[in-house]
């Protein structure tokens, strides 16, 4: 274990997680008004209706796959009788499908961002950085998986990356595990930490607004004017007398 390993596989993850959490809390408190998908559908619909669902369903599946692959220890799946090969086939099959959807969707979205005039001019520098980090992470991840499976002996990330990832969360980080993983995985992980650190400051915050409450709330929302007069909170001493 050398200093680099500690820096990359202990310090970077914790820093990224800290920025991710604190950043979201801070942004939510400071910038509720900027917390939006900033939809560009008003400008262009045809490409978006192709690319956006493809990308989103793809990436949500990918996210689910990561939860399964990283958080569920190998011993658990073995305990319920899933063999290594069965797991591998399902993971690679579903993963490739989801990854492909994500990539094609993202390609359409980026093509749209670049070629449709109004969408391009509504693209901020922030969006560009976000897309570089997001696409970088996706490409590195997909590339590693595909290249790994083209060789005879795909690396079993459930022996290295996954335990390392879990070790971060129970505060006994084990950088040696990750140092042993192939380069592709290491780069993918680093790109992901960078993405997570940037996340709270980008439009990606919209992910945390997934409006599941819609399924259960009454259709029409009533609110009293009393709670909030004008559009700022009353000063101390000026609150409404009940």
């Amino acid at each position, binding site marked *: 274990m050398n200093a680099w390993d500690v820096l990359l596989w202990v310090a970077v993850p914790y820093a990224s997680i800290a920025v991710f959490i604190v950043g979201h809390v801070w942004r939510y408190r400071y*910038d509720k008004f*900027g917390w939006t998908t900033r939809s560009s559908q008003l*400008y262009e619909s045809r490409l978006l209706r192709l690319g956006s669902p493809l990308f989103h369903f793809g990436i949500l599946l990918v996210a689910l796959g990561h939860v399964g692959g990283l958080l569920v220890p190998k011993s658990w799946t073995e305990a319920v009788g899933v063999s290594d090969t069965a797991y591998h086939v399902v993971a690679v099959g579903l993963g490739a499908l989801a990854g492909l959807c994500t990539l094609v969707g993202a390609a359409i979205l980026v093509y749209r961002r670049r070629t449709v005039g109004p969408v391009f001019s509504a693209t901020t520098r922030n969006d560009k950085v976000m897309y570089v980090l997001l696409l970088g992470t996706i490409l590195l991840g997909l590339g590693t998986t595909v290249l790994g499976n083209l060789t005879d002996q795909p690396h079993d990330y459930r022996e290295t990356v996954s335990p390392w990832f879990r070790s971060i969360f129970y505060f006994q980080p084990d950088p040696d595990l990750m140092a042993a993983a192939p380069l592709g995985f290491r780069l993918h992980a680093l790109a992901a930490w960078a993405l997570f650190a940037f996340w709270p400051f980008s439009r990606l915050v919209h992910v945390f607004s997934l409006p599941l409450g819609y399924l259960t709330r009454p259709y029409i929302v009533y609110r009293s004017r009393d709670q909030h*007069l004008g*559009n700022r909170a009353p000063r101390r001493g000026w609150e409404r007398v009940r």
Partner: protein
Amino acid sequence: MRVMAQLAMVMNLDKCIGCHTCSVTCKQAWTNRAGVEYVWFNNVETRPGQGYPRDYEDQERWRGGWVLGRRGRLKLRGGGRLRKLLTIFANPKLPGIDEYYEPWTYDYDTLTNSPLQRHPPVARPRSLISGENTKITWSANWDDDLGGAPDHGHLDPVLKGIEDKVRFEFEQTFMFYLPRICEHCLNPSCAASCPSGAIYKRSEDGIVLVDQDRCRGWRMCVSGCPYKKVYFNHRTGKAEKCTFCFPRVEVGIPTVCAETCVGRLRYIGLVLYDADRVSAAASTPDEKDLYEAQRRVFLDPEDPVVVREAERAGIPHDWVDAARRSPVHALISKYRLALPLHPEYRTMPMVWYIPPLSPVVDVVRDTGHDAEDRDNLFAAIDALRIPVEYLAGLFTAGDVRPVDAVLRKLAAMRSYMRDINLGRAPREAIAASVGMTGDQVRDMFRLLALAKYEERYVIPPAHAELAHGLEELATECSLDYEGGPGMGGWGPFGENSGGAPPIAVENFRMLRNRQTADTVAGPVDKENRVNLLNWDGKGHPEGLFPPRPAERPGGGDPAGEVEPRP
């Protein structure tokens, strides 16, 4: 019974001259910012016509509002909650900017900066969306005054079924104006479509608002509203809609559109309604009964039971009193002149209209008959089916009887008052023929034709003990605010991030930015765009005016002026 109060509006269409003053003053007040260039909280449409956005009334296409499900229960026409969430990544029914129009400005800069040349330079239109040169092909009022009607007049969705009978040749057509704002519906489908629950109905006065801090830009409300009165701000990524000028009505003054209306045709007042009956009324099986059903939801503020229940529901006494004097209540329930716009959308709209008699009067007069004679007018109302059917398509889901009844009352009022004006004895038979007394007709005339300011607007202020916190009546300095004068710019996450500034500050900041702008259009300086509509005559956006003589090189010597060569 659960009594609630609603601020509502009635517009008397006979008096609308289509001047668009209301639209322009509304735009100045609310949507003169970048990102909402195409947004008209108030717009005035020529009917027959396609409206704004184009074709918005075709709910087969846009799927706004409510429909009755199989078991007679209301459901959103655009699909239920799960369907909304599954299509959230790309809304299948969102009108694109083409359905509105691509807003533009002119490149005035070239007028003053171009070099001496053979032909005078022209200011070319520049898109405010992409910043590129553009061709103007459509706008909010492209078909104003039936312009282009022979080509696309038949595209009006309300003409469905009678399109072959309507002629768009100049002599044979009819025409009137329909000013529209958000309906502040009792059963708003915009709010029901919003996944984040950011659109709410104020329980005190029924005004429907978008909480800018909770809107997440899912843009489902735009599709959900059948009147297309929620707009998407393409710069901030948030939905915006007509606010019923809540900062004004809270202090008891009318909305900007009403205050500035040249025809003085808008009425604002309270109605009391029974919230428990709203959903039953909105689910009335037969569309043609919806007008009646909606009217029956309103409560009579003279009824002591209603007054007692209103007090129990916490409605202040002066509000109940205002409901009693409300011109809206009189026009809807007492005289039964006002009709709702498209009740078949089942949102229970709260901006009602007195249908115009003018298409009928015009025909009678043009054919050389006495257009103030009751019998001529009654006969014409019976004979002229097209305008009447068209009006029924707008206001009563196609049922011509209520429209007939309103037009007859208006016709009767015309001839009854003519006798009085000419110094003849009024004929009570005229009033009786529409089931009214002469006194009632005179009262109705007073409200409709004299339309005194204090009778048109009966708006009880929000309570005085609250007033210091209200937006525009701040006892605190309304400009002392983060990002207010002296503070500058947007937050770090792109345009318009940071908290939503109070409206006064936002306008101030925008004005200042605009006045110090040095480009006319173009994405480099999006905050600073200038166009004539939002230029207020103050300040000198660079390039809009030629420099003054003293500032010119050569120091104002008239002999030094260069004549354009032939």
